[in-house]
């Protein structure tokens, strides 16, 4: 009954400096849903890019229905019957469903014009199999996230694929939309498709999938029938040996917890998060933990005053007492190191010195002329460069000449110089090598030791465990758990996937 329709044998792929896939073996059959799980960097995306023809594997074999195939580009992948539903939707909002589905290849009439009638009939047919009743002429912009995703799926189904891969499909869905999605996937399974379902959310695996495969560090850590698995086993496979303890970085804790520096009540932003309540104390590092798509970055940006909020209030410690602050004023008290330093963290054309001083310029003014006191600016920059050991060829060099780790240190220096009471860091060690990571982590610790209140977001559980004093776990835009300093990996992970935190004996 179960016929192997997709077989990957010993797939290997390396990028400069990192082995992404280290001999992956995978088998999936027609009429089954295979879950693909793994932490960030485990190799899921690379494997999917190989299947999608976007990336070429270094070695290995792919067989579909017993025949070896080569996937040199996305068109070939599509031709062999593989379809993708990506996490990031590629839709054209001002155009109709039909247009979105057929834009890369319309059915044509004899005179060369588009045969909309045929296209619409086919669209309706496919949408109906998905349980959707939207008229094909509806414009995408008037559809909600769930319906939009249905259109994406419908587009993937147009080519009658044998194998359908869903990449983190539920990140922006409401629970009703998720239920509908699952019904759709089940019906696809009934019809004999092979479905690969990539996700972080363990509860979905148990609700929907037949088998599961866990990736870790580019290899298959384990797997099997979902009926034979449980949360703990999967989590163990994702993490490796559970007795691996992360050394908590030493920190001089000057006495007990200090005063509340930031108090947030019922903060909400439509479509991203709601009901956020938290308190940050000076001298502590709070880890904002959650999976991709949980809303962590949105919360962080809203706290820092970069994006507007729809409800709730923020209070900041000023002159001895907590005073309410407008979102727009947040920048005075709260600094933010953003997720993507290349996008909005650096002025790459500008020098290291100027990048460091960017947030503190009003404080570097001369007392007499309306000029910036460059001497002071340079000495401060030199001090910070030395303190953080930023390797550079001179502070006047453009910051683009630095390595990723040193660039991140520059951004850190910028905020160290301004020294706001609250500092939010979103993935502060992303893209850095191990040495740089540890350095930044210890800086964060010492910053807290000096009295700042720090909120850290990280996708790497070891990292966040190593630096946090306590944790706020985010799931689907809400804080679902507050865990203390001795929370274990398992507790953190199970809380992040929406289950109650489980403590292993």
């Amino acid at each position: 009954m179960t016929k192997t329709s997709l077989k990957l044998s010993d797939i290997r792929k390396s990028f400069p400096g990192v082995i992404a896939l280290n001999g992956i073996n995978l088998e999936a059959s027609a009429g089954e849903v295979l879950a693909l799980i793994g932490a960030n960097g485990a190799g899921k995306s690379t494997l999917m890019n190989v299947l999608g023809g976007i990336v070429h594997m270094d070695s290995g074999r792919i067989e579909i229905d017993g025949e070896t195939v080569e996937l040199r580009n996305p068109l070939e992948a599509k031709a062999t019957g593989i379809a993708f539903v990506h996490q990031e939707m590629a839709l054209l909002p001002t155009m109709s469903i039909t247009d979105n589905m057929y834009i890369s290849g319309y059915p044509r009439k004899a005179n060369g014009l588009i045969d909309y009638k045929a296209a619409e009939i086919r669209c309706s047919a496919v949408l109906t199999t998905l349980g959707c009743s939207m008229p094909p002429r509806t414009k995408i912009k008037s559809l909600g996230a769930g319906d939009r995703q249905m259109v994406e799926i419908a587009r993937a189904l147009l080519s009658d694929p044998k194998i359908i891969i869903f990449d983190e499909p539920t990140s922006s869905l409401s629970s009703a939309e998720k239920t509908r999605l699952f019904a759709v996937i089940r019906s696809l399974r009934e019809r004999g498709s092979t479905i690969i379902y990539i996700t972080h959310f363990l509860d979905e695996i148990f609700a929907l999938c037949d088998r599961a495969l866990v990736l870790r560090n580019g290899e298959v850590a384990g797997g099997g029938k979902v009926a034979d698995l449980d949360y703990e086993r999967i989590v163990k496979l994702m993490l490796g040996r559970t007795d691996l303890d992360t050394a908590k970085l030493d920190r001089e804790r000057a006495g007990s917890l200090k005063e509340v520096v930031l108090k947030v009540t019922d903060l909400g932003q439509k479509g991203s998060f709601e009901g956020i309540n938290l308190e940050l104390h000076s001298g502590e590092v709070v880890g904002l933990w959650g999976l991709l798509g949980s809303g962590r970055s949105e919360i962080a940006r809203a706290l820092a005053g970069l994006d507007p909020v729809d409800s709730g209030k923020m209070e900041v410690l000023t002159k001895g007492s907590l005073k309410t602050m407008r979102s727009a004023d947040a920048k005075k008290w709260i600094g933010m190191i953003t997720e993507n330093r290349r996008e909005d963290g650096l002025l790459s054309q500008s020098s290291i010195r100027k990048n460091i001083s960017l947030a503190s310029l009003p404080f570097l003014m001369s007392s007499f002329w309306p000029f910036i006191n460059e001497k002071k600016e340079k000495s401060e920059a030199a001090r910070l460069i030395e303190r953080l050991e930023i390797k550079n060829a001179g502070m006047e060099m453009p910051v683009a000449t630095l390595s990723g780790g040193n660039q991140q240190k520059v951004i850190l220096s910028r905020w160290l110089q301004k020294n706001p009471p609250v500092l939010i860091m979103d993935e502060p060690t992303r893209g850095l090598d191990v040495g740089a990571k540890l350095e930044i982590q210890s800086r964060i610790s010492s910053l807290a030791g000096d009295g700042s209140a720090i909120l850290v977001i990280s996708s790497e559980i070891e990292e966040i465990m190593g630096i946090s004093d306590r944790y706020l776990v985010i799931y689907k835009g809400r804080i679902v758990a507050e865990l203390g300093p001795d929370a274990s990996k398992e507790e953190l992970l199970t809380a992040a996937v929406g289950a109650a935190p489980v403590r292993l004996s």
Partner: protein
Amino acid sequence: MSRGDSALGRVAGIFREYGFLIILLAVILFFSVATKRFFSISNIMGLLHACAPIAIVAAGLALVVMTGKLDISIGSVSFFSCAVGAILMTRMGVSPALALPIVVALGALCGLLNGLVCVYLGVNPLITTMGSMFIFRGLALQLTGSRVISIPQSLRTFGNFRIGPVFLDVIIAILFLLVVHVLHTRSPSGRRVMALGNGAETAARLGVRVKTVSLATFMISGLCAGIGGLFAIFQMGAVTLQMGTGQEFTAIAAIVIGGISLFGGEGAIFPNYILGILTLGIIENGLNHLGASPYVYPFVRGGIILLAMYADSLKRSAKPLVALSRG
């Protein structure tokens, strides 16, 4: 601040979607009441006749705008290509059968040059078409020696020919726009123009050849400028020094008033573009009847563009973009 479901929200929603139509009706009503002879057949026919040239010239620009770019050289391209044609016919005795296609081809060529510089040299379309606006105008003035060049009488007769009360060129213009509309809404290339306006990256991900589409729209813009220019000189019987001056501005005004967003991806020839042209034409015709001085027109056009852009920016900020999945 919740919106959308309240009654006020719904009215605002209707206005956003159909604002241009409401404005058109309001304008017609206003001028019919405020002036005599506005609603007469002869006035309406004259109005349509006057609108025909710009309607054609700006059609290509409408396509460029729908891809999210701009081409302000259309007036100059129109002038330049027609100047060449007029010189060929009048000074060098070339027959219209040869000269007219040359004009059209020249327009397309100018558009192609614009497109090549924008797409392949990567120069900002605003700067490119601003530069080419001056370059083509300069060439045209140089060629004509700053003199009016007339065209053969036969063409002038043709340009003002009537079938009953209706002008022939109005009919041709409507047919032309119909063809453009059909190609825009029902051909794959036309649909890809709209896709590009929704976002070059998304379009590229969906397999649209972004560079080719963009190049093509610039070429069509030049082509329309050439053809529309012919309509204009047929009506006038000559190529004048001021031909095409400020035309890009009028074109932009007509385009935005019809509800086509300058950010790209929205609108169509029917109804938006046609209504925009008509509305602007009516406003100017009506102002004429009211005895307004010709100096008022730049104010009106400038004001229209600013108001329309303001309305457009309101429209964009009112609807929070549904969060496309992000990490």
